[in-house]
């Protein structure tokens, strides 16, 4: 081993060494000493790659690999909760947790308790209007996250974690409600002028929309049709 590369690896903390070693060995890296981890890394990577591994730069990630440093941050403070994050017009990332005591309680009452993710919306822009179920999707106690696709354009999205015991439903966690303002495109006939004033920044040099957004495309087409 050359001094420069060994020195480089010794600058890494334990978790980083484990992270690097995990990618190429079947050994249980947690049980290896620091020196053994360094040895393992030498077996996995060429020297140039090790030289490029200064912390903070150029350690490439392999897609979907496990071993993120973040997984080592203890969560404790676990409560039953559900959080939804809108990614784009149709995709939502949802993650949830059930506190150990609630999980024990649910399963002690009924070992066959089922879990469900419930996605709800309202019928218009108003947060006060009636809420309805968009769809339910079953999940398990082992799961804790999903990426959910919703095809329909939505107004006010809420997700709930529902426990079903002996046919009875109980909402055990409810997310924040997201407000998706929707343009009132069906109610107004917009002029060509509006098209220029609102959509010019969204067109490329060939006058095509640069935004891959279904609502914008529909809206833009409708204004063009209205003015033909």
């Amino acid at each position, binding site marked *: 081993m050359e001094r420069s590369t060994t020195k480089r690896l010794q600058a890494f903390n334990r978790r980083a060494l484990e992270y690097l070693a995990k990618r190429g060995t079947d050994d249980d890296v947690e049980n290896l000493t620091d020196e053994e981890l360094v040895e393992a890394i030498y077996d996995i990577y060429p020297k140039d790659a090790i030289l490029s591994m200064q912390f*903070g730069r150029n350690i490439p990630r392999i897609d979907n690999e496990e071993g993120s440093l*973040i997984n080592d941050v*203890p969560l404790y403070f676990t409560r039953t909760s559900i959080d939804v994050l809108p990614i784009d017009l149709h995709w939502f990332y949802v993650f949830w947790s059930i506190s150990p005591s609630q999980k024990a309680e649910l399963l002690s009452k009924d070992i066959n308790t089922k879990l469900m993710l419930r996605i709800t919306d309202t019928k218009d822009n108003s947060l006060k209007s009636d809420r309805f179920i968009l769809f339910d999707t079953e999940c398990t106690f082992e799961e804790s996250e999903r990426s959910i696709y919703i095809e329909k354009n939505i107004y006010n999205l809420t997700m709930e974690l529902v426990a079903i015991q002996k046919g009875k439903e109980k909402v055990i966690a409810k997310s*924040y409600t997201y407000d998706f303002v929707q343009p009132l495109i069906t109610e107004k006939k917009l002029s060509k002028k509006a098209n*220029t004033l609102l959509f010019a*920044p969204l067109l490329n040099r060939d006058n095509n929309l640069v935004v891959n957004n279904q609502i914008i495309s529909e809206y833009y087409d409708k204004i063009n049709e209205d003015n033909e």
Partner: protein
Amino acid sequence: MKKGYVNIVLHAHLPYIRHLDDETVFEEEWFYEAMCESYMPLVRMLFKARDEKLKFHITLVLSPTLVEMIKDRANCKGFVEYLDKHIELGEKELKRLEGNDEFYRVAEDTLNLYKAARNEVVNKYGEKLINALIGLQESGYVEIITSVAAHTFLPIYESRPSLVKAEIATANSVHFTTFKDYSKGLWLPDCGYYPRLDEILKKNAIESQYFFVSPVSFALAKNNIKRGVYAPVKTTSGMYVFAFETSLMNLVTSSIDGYPGDDDYREFYRDIGYDLPLSYIGEYVPDAEKRGFTGYKYYSVSGKKEDKKVYNKDKAMAKVDMHSSHFVDSIEARVKEVGPLIDQDPVINLAFDAELLGHWWKEGIDWLYSVIKKIDANDNLSLITSSDYIKIYPDAEKASLARSALTLNTYASPYLDGSNNKIQRVIFNAIDKVEDITARYYNDKNPVRLRYIKQAVKEMLLATSSDWLQIMHNNTSPIYAERKIEEHLQSINKIYDLLSYGKGDTSWLVRQEKKYPLFDAIDYHTFTNK
């Protein structure tokens, strides 16, 4: 023809990076490169335009983390060392290139850039770089505004308003303590907006009147906005909102056919750090054992790697002239098109990353100077800030804007893809912990405990920086980004444990405070749902 107002906003931001005692981390170079190649030449150019009595008003966004780094004397010292090293390399290069006129001229130009920066830092500003920016603000030609404390992409944390409030209030404090005035406007990172965010901004950003959004927010607003993106609207909370003219911005920023990709401009990626022997450049790159950028780049964009032509400044400047004319002509054409459609003089809002100008696109600052000059000479156009436009036209249409981000197709996809979405679970958990302790000790008077809470809030803000998510998304330095988030969250865990169950560890606290000497004016009371 109606007059057209041109509202140019330059956005300067870097994540908070400070590893002065850790020789294995080199990310401070990002700061030094941006200072030398973008921020200082930009300040120089704007003072020059003022001295030439050009009529211009421009907005400069300085993110709070960048302001804190610029104010940090230790960073200034590091910057001078960086410049000395690059001046030494430049002088070696001039000797090496004697007799080779084409290359010599390019090396000399680069060397002069480092020398000019060093002279200003040491002799003009006495190693207080922030004075350059304060001077710019005081000149009256530049309106400096703030962003969000740690450049957090706010829509992700819509359901945690405590964090959003603390981000805004802290940014405002940093701006006030630095510039002795409240920021008149706000820059939302990536222009991430969600319905009713304006209400939080209004309550927590004292005296801020305006912010910016993507044109998607206007196009999909609940009501039809009659003046389109060519005038601001007013939200129900009373804030003015300006939307960007992204199609004109694309003339510069498009990765396919933007101006910076022209053959005659300087090629960023071809650097002697990759062309000359490691034994020669080793002591001038961040890590002596690995190749890296030195700043000495002798080729133009032209051709593929092997056939690139030597950079020719005269040819590049001719293109600057051509591209600035094209840009100003395009703005004028848009004003001619939209002017007759609305009942007031239109404003064209344009934003560019400050680091694009000078650092990535070497000629970018010359281009901007040329744009300023051409607008000054154009009777139909005038450069203006958002504040001044609002003064002329205080009556704006009311609007309920849609959620959007400057990344047009998305609400948040670069920040929530498979590379980084799992992190949100631990971040949300930490936010809940910080909310818990700020609520528990809201009226506490114990000075040491208050330092712990303040530190927890600071670490929470830094953990949510959009830069870490962006770095993971781009797969540039994902380990570094995860390490930063992990460090902040572990600190929050430690503070939570200390306050909840254990005795204090003041030596750890002092170390942590010294490690992150920023956001002094943080008010932990803002980090609550009260």
